[in-house]
């Protein structure tokens, strides 16, 4: 579907569907389908980060899990460029092949508290994938765990502690160390910083960026915070009720959106600048249920640009130029507002700087008390 050379693509998802049956009545018959993911197409180039955004319930996590085959796809292809096997369709692999491919695809979850087994030491948590895949044992295993802890900014001696002894940011680091253990190519990050405070969020985002450079990683970065996604992604895909409505380079998508849903999402971001107060675009109603989506374009009941055709015909995701994909009947005509370029608008908030210590007030040479963490 794209003009990007196939060799540059690590993952290509074609018409992916994941439907969950709804059971009802006494006989628990299937009475309907929750079409959580319903015909999703995207690709991720090697070494890049593709952001995936959308309101909750849009199917972001289900997409991530189905790509990993933690969930069985209902239909579609997941073409992954495995370093040994070459291009394989993960959706169709048998369990033996899947076992070979899996180490190259890892996932990190939002909640560092519930995703780590509280009864296992941090060392065992990180070592587990290495043991299961017979990659290392004995001293080599201990060395590898120590390495991984250092790589994510923790200390080797942390291996003997249990997860409860760590803060939220540190637990997310443990999850990242575990995901890195088998030298994966692709990491799916499902809201990895959503539960963290801003200062800790910045630490984890910086770490993910450093690791990407160091280990040549490719990320699918799922999040609902659009500022975070803009910061970390090379390209961004916008999802709405199981379907991608827009995909473009980050720059294009944020400054020159082509789908009214993207425009509304961008307008809703509370801008951290009190001199730039604004009223959001009215987005009436809620995200429709994927069990009973509207006709035509799923966004039409909430869209301020909707015309008659939108009620009956579902627009396909199509390239409107320069690898900018949009699923709106009027993508080419609409003049939609993106976010203003920072530094170019009238009120560019200067980035404050922390003052240096005042030498005349410094009274001793003592170092600050050590802080746990970094």
């Amino acid at each position, binding site marked *: 579907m794209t003009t990007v050379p196939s060799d540059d693509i690590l993952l290509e998802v074609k018409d992916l569907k994941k439907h969950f049956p709804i059971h009802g009545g006494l006989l628990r018959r299937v009475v309907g389908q929750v079409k959580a993911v319903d015909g999703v197409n995207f690709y991720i180039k090697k070494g890049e980060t593709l952001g995936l955004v959308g*309101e909750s319930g849009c199917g972001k996590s289900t997409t991530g899990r189905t790509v990993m085959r933690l969930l069985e796809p209902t239909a579609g292809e997941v073409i992954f460029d495995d370093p040994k096997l070459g291009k394989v369709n993960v959706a169709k692999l048998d369990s033996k092949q899947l076992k070979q491919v899996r180490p190259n695809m890892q996932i990190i979850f939002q909640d560092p508290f519930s995703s780590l087994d509280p009864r296992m030491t941090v060392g065992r948590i990180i070592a587990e994938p290495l043991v299961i895949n017979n990659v290392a044992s004995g001293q080599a295993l201990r060395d590898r765990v120590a390495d991984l802890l250092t790589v994510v900014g923790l200390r080797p001696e942390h291996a003997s502690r249990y997860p409860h002894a760590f803060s939220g940011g540190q637990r997310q680091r443990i999850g990242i160390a575990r995901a890195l253990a088998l030298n994966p190519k692709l990491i799916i990050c499902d809201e990895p910083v959503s539960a963290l*405070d801003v200062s800790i969020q*910045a630490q984890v985002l910086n770490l993910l960026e450093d690791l990407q450079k160091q280990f040549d990683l490719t990320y699918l970065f799922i999040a609902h915070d659009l500022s975070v996604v803009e910061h970390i992604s090379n390209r961004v895909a916008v999802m709405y009720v199981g379907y991608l409505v827009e995909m473009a380079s980050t720059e294009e998508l944020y*400054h020159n959106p082509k789908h009214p849903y993207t425009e509304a999402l961008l307008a809703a971001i*509370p801008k951290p600048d*009190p001199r730039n107060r604004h*009223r959001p675009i009215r987005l009436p109603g809620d995200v429709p249920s994927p069990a009973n989506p509207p006709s035509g374009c799923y966004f039409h009941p909430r869209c301020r640009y909707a015309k008659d055709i939108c009620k009956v015909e579902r627009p396909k995701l199509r390239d409107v130029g320069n690898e900018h994909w949009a699923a709106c009947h009027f993508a080419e005509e609409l003049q939609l507002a993106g976010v203003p370029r920072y530094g170019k608008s009238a009120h560019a908030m200067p980035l404050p*700087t922390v003052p240096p210590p005042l030498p005349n007030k410094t009274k001793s040479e003592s170092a*600050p008390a050590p802080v746990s963490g970094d």
Partner: protein
Amino acid sequence: MSVAQQPSSSAIPTSAPESAAPEEDIVLEVQDLHVYFYTQIGVVRALNGVSFKIPRGKVLGIVGESGCGKSQTSLATMQLIPRPGKVESGKILFREFNNQEPIDLLTLERNSDEMRNIRGDNISMIFQEPMTSLNPCYTVGDQIKEAIILHQGVDKEEAHTRAVDILRKVGMPNPERIAISYPHQLSGGMRQRAMIAMALSCTPTLLIADEPTTALDVTTEAQILELMRDLQREIGMSIMFITHNLGVVAQMCDEVAVMYLGRIVEWASVDDIFYNPKHPYTILLLRSIPRLGSEEHIRLESIKGSVPDPYTRVPGCPFHPRCPSFMPGLCDVEEPPETTVDGNARHTVRCHLYT
């Protein structure tokens, strides 16, 4: 057993009653509030001398990372500190009307009729999780009606009319239908609106909003914030707006108090907090959020380490172990007193760089 640190003599006293303009109409004034939790493994000093004021009709934002004491500040105001927590010392002065003698809420028995009336009539609270204030067994309309009958002494019919009115005011598409719905039949955003409707049904003098939009999507959040702003202007109430989201602060607040480890480390107008921040913690918070729309990729500033364990006591400035401006021998020894910034009595900071 107060352990309030006395400001050192070199400090310029700030926001003390005498320095405030005499005509200033203050709805809530918290003075030197200390809240401790006596747990089995030790004492948690959740609030260590918190002082601030909320002028009538203004929105005060309280920001800071989790655990810094935002929620305990709001709960103390409502006399709702949970066990084993206790207000050690301090004053919480509330004035329903201008020029009225203030009542110190802490002198009221927490279950007294007087305190209950204040909670129902004068100060309302909304939370991140709407189900903490909505009863799942009653319809939304019945719950609002009950509050109206109890606090405004009108009959059932009038209460119903007012309940539907207020549901319409908070932007419910079909207020008659919503009134006969149970909370679980509503979406997250609708439930949040229902909770706001209930909090506003008594037209409070002060609304305390503790992370009211944190669990919502940006689109719903933007609508709830717009709604709160409109209603605030219309009713003229004051708001204590608690959040950790600096974007929400910039959009919603008039004044901002930045908290760290149970203390307010900087207080200023929202414009000064963003355009002229002074405390290293405030500056670092501003540097740690991604800048929307930046041309070039600016690496995020992170604050080293994390908020210390609540059972430990940090000597000197509570931020010194994480602070790039740390001055050994001073910051780790003396707690910085509150000082004003550039002679502006409405901008205060607690940091040795400015003492």
